[in-house]
């Protein structure tokens, strides 16, 4: 079933909690908007300078739409409590993102939640792991 993409209003606090690694401007992303995307996790790249999350959202006629989402550095996420083994390709996941201003299917990661699992936040750890 095609998951409706929701735009959360009043996401001001989330908008300020951008990922660490400010090596580029966030001009590409709409920091005032938060979009939710749910689909199948096609790929997860534990790389620097960003992890990349590839999600396929089911679409019309069986043709999925693929989203490409950048997140923080893997080390940042590990310190935040993310665990390599908990990210499984093929699982259903929901992400919240700041979307690309162009309207293309890409964005900057805020949270990732595996189906039936706990929500994992992107961003610098506060040390309370």
């Amino acid at each position: 079933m095609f998951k409706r993409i929701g735009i959360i209003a009043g996401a001001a606090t989330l908008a300020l909690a951008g990922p660490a690694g400010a090596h580029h401007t966030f001009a590409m992303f709409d920091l005032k908007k938060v979009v939710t995307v749910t689909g199948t996790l096609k790929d997860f790249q534990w790389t620097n300078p960003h992890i990349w999350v590839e999600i396929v959202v089911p679409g019309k006629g069986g043709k999925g739409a693929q989203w490409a989402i950048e997140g923080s550095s893997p080390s940042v996420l590990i310190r935040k409590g993310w665990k390599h083994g908990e990210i499984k390709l093929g699982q259903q996941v929901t992400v919240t993102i700041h979307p690309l201003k162009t309207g293309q299917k890409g964005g900057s990661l805020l949270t990732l939640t595996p189906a039936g699992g706990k929500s994992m936040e992107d961003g610098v750890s506060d040390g309370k792991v």
Partner: protein
Amino acid sequence: MKPIRLALVLGTCCLALLGCSPAKEAPAKAQNVPPGSSWRAIEQLPDWGGAWHLTTGGQFKRGGVAGWSPPEMTPEGVARLKTADEAYFKRGINPPLQNCLPDGMPHIMDYAFPMELYFVPGKVVIYIEAYGQVRWIFTDGRQQNSDLPPTYNGHSIGHWEGDTLVVDTVGMIPQTQLVVSDNFLGMRHSDQLTVHERIRLTGPDTLEIKTTVSDPVIFAKPWPTVKTYRRDRRPLMQANEYVCSNNREPLDAQGRQSFQFNPPKD
């Protein structure tokens, strides 16, 4: 030999063995040996172990965090920042960091990634997780060497003042930028850029680095900033590898950022 003579001979020998040795060497003149010049001497240095995580200053200067204010600039500095602001805010030009080139000193010390400090004889070595950077601070009493070419992180000479490591860094390449505001492109510095740091513990698990950036071409006065860190000794919180291997947002020839989608596979 008669017993008493034997006793006298033995007694004299004993005295000799006990240290009435002739011509004891005069004590070596106390040389000005810098702290930390040997493994034994390193034991006397403060404990800077564990990983240090930035708490204030640095990258967090945005958002009104206490601990920094912008530099006072010369007219040349104002002009360079104006050029940089137009490029960054209006045309979306990004720094070479966006193409995985390191920032160099001083900005490489400003990231919200941990660092670790290691003592070896005559040197303090800093591993900075951001972009997997290493700095060497020479504490062996050497002087700056103008025969060395400029580098990203420059050449750092340090000395101990009590428990404070005082560091002076010169020799940064011209291509690095100075980030003095929310503009991450930063402004161009001159070859007169120098960075002065004072590094010390402020508590059992807190560290402070007071940095003063000087560049008389662009700054009217030396520019002071303060960064504070908390220590974490847990393995999960250590500084890790960082290889900039998967940059899907490289810059075009003008310095504008792109966004690379993976082509969808059938």
